[in-house]
């Protein structure tokens, strides 16, 4: 297992280098010039040339890519074109906010979504089932920005329970953004859990468990749930990755200093170092989340664990044969 994890971590390196290369090329070959954006439209050609030299933009494309990668490997993400501030520092300031927001939102979605989905599958067609399907439908139908604004209107402006912007209030300031973000994810998790559970409950081994005289709680908790969790886990991993990519709308509505807004402002200003820095961090965290999901699979399903182990084994055997 450890070997598998190490191998996956090694594979991550070329993946991230590839992602940086693609983003670098896109920024390079799309129209728009960062320098004229910094200096404005009235800048003289001499000034522009000077600024280009200063930012190192006159170097060949590939050389700049290599230099950038080498710097990143040393932990240096470069400076923003416009302000000259360190990109690394900006990310370090914003990453905790995004992390906290993502983790709390996904936790909320899981804590609400999975039990509701299980309950609704176990009591199929009951009042609880209808309620939870309805609940999920409403959640997924509400656009994020609208839900955010409504929550602010009720809980900040009217009731004054939670702050409407910023992160100054500790955990309390994350309550409304997390509800906003997790709404649509909760809806998907409820429906996913429900349909997976329904499928598993009709399996033969669940009937075997019943024939053993197991209680309904044990049948659901011990036999069905674990088998139903694989697709749900995949979804949770995907959404967690998406959240790490920044939640621009929630960040904008609640004025949170997260990665999403930094990335978007970088893109509009064609600020290459900012964009690249954000993309690198996001790509790394998504890769790590995927790895975590794959490792979790192995713990849920022994068949997958055997597959991981045999993947290493097959290679060793092939080498021995040579």
């Amino acid at each position, binding site marked *: 297992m450890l070997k598998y994890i190490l191998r996956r971590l090694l594979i991550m390196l070329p993946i991230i280098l590839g992602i940086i290369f693609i983003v670098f090329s896109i920024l390079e070959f799309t129209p728009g010039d960062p320098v004229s954006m910094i200096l404005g439209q009235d800048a003289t050609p001499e000034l522009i040339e000077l600024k280009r030299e200063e930012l190192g933009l006159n170097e060949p494309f590939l050389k700049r890519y290599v230099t950038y990668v080498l710097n990143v490997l040393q932990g240096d993400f470069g400076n923003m074109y416009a302000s000259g501030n360190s990109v690394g520092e900006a990310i370090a300031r914003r990453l905790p906010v995004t992390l906290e927001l993502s983790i709390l939102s996904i936790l909320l979605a899981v804590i609400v979504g999975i039990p509701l989905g299980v309950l609704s599958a176990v009591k199929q067609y009951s009042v609880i089932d209808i309620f939870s399907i309805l609940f999920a439908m409403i959640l997924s139908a509400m656009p994020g920005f609208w839900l955010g604004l409504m929550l602010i209107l009720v809980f900040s402006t009217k009731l004054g329970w939670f702050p409407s912007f910023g992160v100054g209030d500790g955990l309390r300031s994350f309550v409304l953004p997390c509800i906003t973000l997790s709404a649509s994810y909760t809806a998907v998790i409820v429906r996913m859990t429900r349909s997976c559970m329904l499928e598993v409950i009709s*399996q033969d081994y669940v009937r075997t*468990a019943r024939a*053993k005289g197991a209680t309904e709680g044990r049948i659901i908790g011990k036999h069905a749930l674990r088998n139903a969790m694989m697709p749900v886990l995949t979804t949770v991993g995907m959404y967690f990755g998406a959240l790490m990519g920044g939640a621009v709308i929630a960040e904008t509505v609640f004025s949170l200093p997260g990665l999403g807004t930094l990335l978007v402002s970088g893109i509009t200003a064609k600020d290459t170092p900012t964009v690249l820095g954000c993309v690198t961090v996001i790509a790394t965290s998504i890769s790590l989340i995927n790895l975590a999901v794959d490792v979790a699979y192995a713990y849920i399903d022994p068949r997958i664990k055997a597959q991981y182990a045999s993947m290493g084994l097959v290679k060793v055997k092939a080498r021995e044969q040579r």
Partner: protein
Amino acid sequence: MSERLLEIRDLEVQYLTMGSTVRAVNGLSLVLNKGETLGVVGETGAGKTTLALSIMQLLPKKIGRIAGGSIVFAGQSILDASAREMRSVRGDEIAMIFQDPMTSLNPVMTIGDQVAEMLELHSEGRDKKEISDKVDALLEMVGIPAERKEEYPHQFSGGMRQRVVIAIALACNPTLLIADEPTTALDVTIQAQVLEMMEDLKTRLNTSMLLITHDLGVVAAMCDSVAVMYAGRIIEYGSVDQIFESPLHPYTIGLFNAIPSLEGKTHRLIPIEGLMPNPAELPQGCSFHPRCTKCMEVCRHQSPPDFDEGGHTVACHLFGADKEGA
């Protein structure tokens, strides 16, 4: 006469599906004595599995329901038992071996845990060590090395999995074992092994068995008596000798004509023409009459009563008092 273990009277089981009622079991009656093996044979769709699930009270919720009749097990009515009482009967007193070993074990639990679960559920107060020893003994009994108990179902072949299923079923020494086509999914050599093992265990533990199968060879080898099922009803019942030596019902005779014989000259097999009637629209009268070669006028209108001759029962108008009425 030996002691009665299971007595089913006029059992009616229905499945409620969209707009129609499927009558899977229609007025079925049977008796099983202690220590005996009763074979239930019949085509696919005759209601054999439904019968087994009714005894276990494991009919699919909401769509399956018992519409009438009674099931008495060891002097107690199963249909009146509460869910809690039923849970303690299931596994402990009535155990079931399911048809398909490939799907009836939980893929994410070790086989040792799955056997141990049965023991944990029905014998409180015993410590972990004792349960673990018992699991080892059970696995050895069905021919699986105890050191493989940490392995998962996917690491076993079909025949080995069926042994695990049997070990689970026998864990609590049940008084009644329901085996629903225990060998259908296995190849012939493994079939013989599994059957031999079940026979051996049955005599050792003095378990009664309800063996559901469509394999008449298995019945001849394993059973004391045979019940032939057709469209949810037992149409012929008798000892193995009675049924095999002198089958009475045209359907039973048809079944025997449809299997190849090793003795004598090989002639063409004679299949029973047609298909099992749709249980949602059973024909009037005797439900076998559309396929029966000896169909008479009375068969189309009147359901035949059971005719008893020395413990050999048959439900057919060809026999008994109705003969003259034809």
